[in-house]
């Protein structure tokens, strides 16, 4: 059973088609990089997979459950695209932000306890940022902020980690470090990773699969086999569709 299975997924906004007939499967333990030009539908694909936007599809199954009845939120760690307009007035501490990652385990009225705080501290410690615990989120650097959001995604010990351009705005050193950390999480914890990025070079080095899309899938397969000519849309779709399923 795949961790993610989509069949013929399409998304349109009004008359404009953003994704067409996307069919692919992600196996447990995969580290899949999603790449493509601006406006290719990368974020739209991830949002459709998470049920955040409506999609017309034959089926989307996440962790074995159809998306329409999906309830296993605690098994998905999500790191959304960095909020460009993060509300600097919001005085949340790093610990409070990470605790938000545990809410999916709870029912209303949701409360956090000492065990949750301990889990948040552990998640921060694993990423080497436990010292930031009481710092205001609005005071963090770009790299620190992304690490805190990664801690928030990991604190619930997910099976699947979905990251939407986590390296945007990071300097090369912070970028390299974040990718290394993700590789470690994937290899040592067995967490399946789906990551959107423009950095094909990094995907080639750290991910085992690449999903290259431009409204439809142009390539899906092992990173080492990716024909770099496809970046400019020169790859005929027929050549690669067989890679969409295991």
């Amino acid at each position, binding site marked *: 059973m795949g961790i993610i299975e989509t069949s013929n997924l399409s998304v349109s906004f009004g008359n404009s088609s953003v994704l067409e007939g996307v069919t692919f499967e992600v196996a447990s333990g995969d580290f899949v990089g999603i790449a493509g030009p601006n406006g290719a539908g990368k974020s739209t694909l991830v949002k459709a997979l*998470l049920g*955040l936007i409506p999609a017309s599809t034959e089926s989307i199954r996440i962790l074995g459950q159809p998306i329409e009845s999906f*309830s296993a*939120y605690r098994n*998905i760690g*999500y790191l*959304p695209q960095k*909020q460009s307009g993060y*509300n600097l*007035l*919001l*005085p*949340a*501490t790093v610990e*409070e*932000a990470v*605790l*938000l*990652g545990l*809410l*999916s385990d*709870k029912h*209303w*009225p*949701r*409360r*956090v306890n000492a065990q949750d705080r301990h889990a948040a501290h552990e998640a921060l410690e694993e990423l080497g940022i436990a010292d930031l615990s*009481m710092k*205001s989120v609005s*005071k963090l650097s770009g790299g620190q902020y992304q690490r805190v959001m990664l801690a*928030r995604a990991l604190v619930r010990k997910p099976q699947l980690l979905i990251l939407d351009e986590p390296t945007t705005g990071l300097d090369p050193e912070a970028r390299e470090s974040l990718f290394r950390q993700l590789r470690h999480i994937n290899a040592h914890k067995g967490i399946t990773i789906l990551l959107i990025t423009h950095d094909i070079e990094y995907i080639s080095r750290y991910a085992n699969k690449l999903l290259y899309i431009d409204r439809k899938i142009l390539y899906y397969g092992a990173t080492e086999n990716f024909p770099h000519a496809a970046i400019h849309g020169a790859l005929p779709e027929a050549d690669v569709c067989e890679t969409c399923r295991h």
Partner: protein
Amino acid sequence: MDFSFAQLLQYGFMQKAFVAGSFTALTCSALGLFLVLRNMSLIGDGLSHVSFGAIALGLFMGVSPSYVALPVVIVGSYLILKIAQKTGVYSDTAIGIVSSVAIASGVILASLSHGFNVDLLSYLFGSILAVSWSEVWLSAILSVVVLLLLFLSYWDLFSVTFDEEYAKVSGIKTETINTLLTVLTAVVVVLAVKVVGVMLVSALLILPAVSALQIASGFSKAFWYAGIFAVVSVLVGVTVSFFADLPAGATVVMINASIFAGMIGIRRFVSPCFR
């Protein structure tokens, strides 16, 4: 004037003003924090205008305005949400539509009645010194209900405030939370109209919250600061208004504004100690 604060407390109207004002201010401050952080500050202003129409309707029907205002303002808040959702207009536009229709209705009702314009004016600028014990009880009970719901939904509201998309992926019913926030705002606006009046309600929602946000180093701390600022502003504002013979609602707002100015100063000059 040779009065002590203790002597002041012996007056029944002052006791009622302090109790009703404190409950209302505390509730406004807690709710205001979410409204300010979610860029929804204007909804308080819009709903206060709806309360103007509702109060006019109550006076026109010869019913206690507070009892009419509560359901009407809740309906108004629901309409704002629905107009924004169904027509695709921005929420500030929806607020503008509903609030202007409500004011227009109030003005028409006032002109048709030929008799309650003076009463209506007292609601425009508040009359905290004239609250009855039944109004004190109403404000206390509604405040406790609102604060309890905020307490129980604290982490849901915080999550939606921090990042709505992430909240959805955490299984939080974000639409329900948004509706809850809007309906609670409607309740609080009706309470606050009696304290500071239709014209100044949004000040009670916004000022304690933004003052707290200047110095708070955590979301939960911001609640405590906002609550303290709000209650202090009512106690000091009502007292000052008594001794200086000033309108109570306006004085409360000015005390709030002074606290805000003070917190800006603290943030700028003493900030590292707080954050």
